[in-house]
């Protein structure tokens, strides 16, 4: 049920109720659905976290113009690869850490 109304909402919102979805939009939605379904196969504790990660990733780029095909395709490819890694049956949880922006820390001097 969580999958169905979410994607329906996105469909309505993206197409504005009038224009049919473009092939690329359908691919994005299909990928999103696959991500959410992948979360269903995982152990109970990890499910919500996986769904949140997927939603955040997709929301991050929701401002892309329809014409920005190169970037959208790149993101779809990247998303599919990440999804393939998560779909591996040995994977049991998913978490995201934030990479701090700015200069990298100075290299530590070698001990010993």
């Amino acid at each position: 049920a969580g999958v169905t109304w979410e994607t329906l909402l996105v469909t309505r919102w993206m197409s504005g109720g009038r224009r049919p979805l473009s092939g690329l939009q359908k691919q994005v939605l299909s990928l999103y659905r696959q991500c959410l379904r992948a979360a269903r196969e995982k152990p109970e504790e990890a499910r919500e976290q996986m769904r949140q990660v997927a939603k955040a990733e997709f929301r991050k780029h929701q401002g892309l113009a329809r014409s920005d095909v190169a970037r959208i395709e790149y993101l779809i490819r990247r998303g599919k690869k990440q999804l393939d890694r998560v779909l591996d049956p040995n994977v049991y949880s998913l978490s995201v850490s934030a990479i701090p922006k700015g200069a990298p820390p100075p290299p530590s001097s070698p001990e010993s």
Partner: protein
Amino acid sequence: DKMAWLVRLAAPLRTAVRPILASTARGFRTTSVASLKLQPEANVEGKRIKYFQIYRWDPEASSKPYVATYPIDMADCGPMVLDALLKIKNEQDTTLTFRRSCREGICGSCAMNIDGVNTLACLARIDPKTPKCQIYPLPHMYVVKDLVPDMTNFYAQYKTIEPWLQVEDEASTKNKAVEADGTVKENLQNKKDREVLDGMYECILCACCSTSCPSYWWNSEAYLGPAVLMQAYRWIADSRDESKAKRIEFLDDSMKLYRCHTIMNCTKTCPKGLNPGLAIARIKQVVFSHNMS
């Protein structure tokens, strides 16, 4: 200069007794003092600068790729294009992204299009005679970032040809060297059979050839490409392999093998000097004779 040479040619052959070296010294390629100078000649503040025009694209940052130009002092840089790329990354622009590993032409990581030719950056000498060098990623490949191509499809195609030795009965000791207690030590192969593999086993799967083939550009999904096909033939031709018929039947359809129209860009561009075009021709012969029998 050329005129003088032509006049000399028309003159009566009194030069018959001249030693060969002297007669070629005045040929079309005059080794005049001018061409021995270091090039490009000092053009900016007494330094020999060459301009590297490199394709850049950061999908996270912008939607449009662009070409960035970097000046390099030739006196201060190693001879290969990879040296220039590393120098640019170290000193001028750290965000320049490219694959590299062995720096000796054996790993195949740094495959890219340099001045229109697909080669390994670590093996491509910087041409001292031209003022600029154009560096692009491998043509008709999805780009991950800057000069890094997406090789997923290429590797997936390589996997489909099952590039490993396949024997019917692993326990059989036919053509095997056997230890005293009966365990099989090694697969035997005579010199003549081993020579068949020369020119194919050296492939480093850099994808320069597949990526130079127009047929592969237009049919990447279905056509396997010269690199993968040459490896397919490497396993078909291996005397130790026993699934020759299965491998041949796998290739025998309209797309996997027969999109090759002997364009021969592959052989021309191979940075290791291999001949995938010939290997593909051999596959076609083998498929034909298999179908005839």
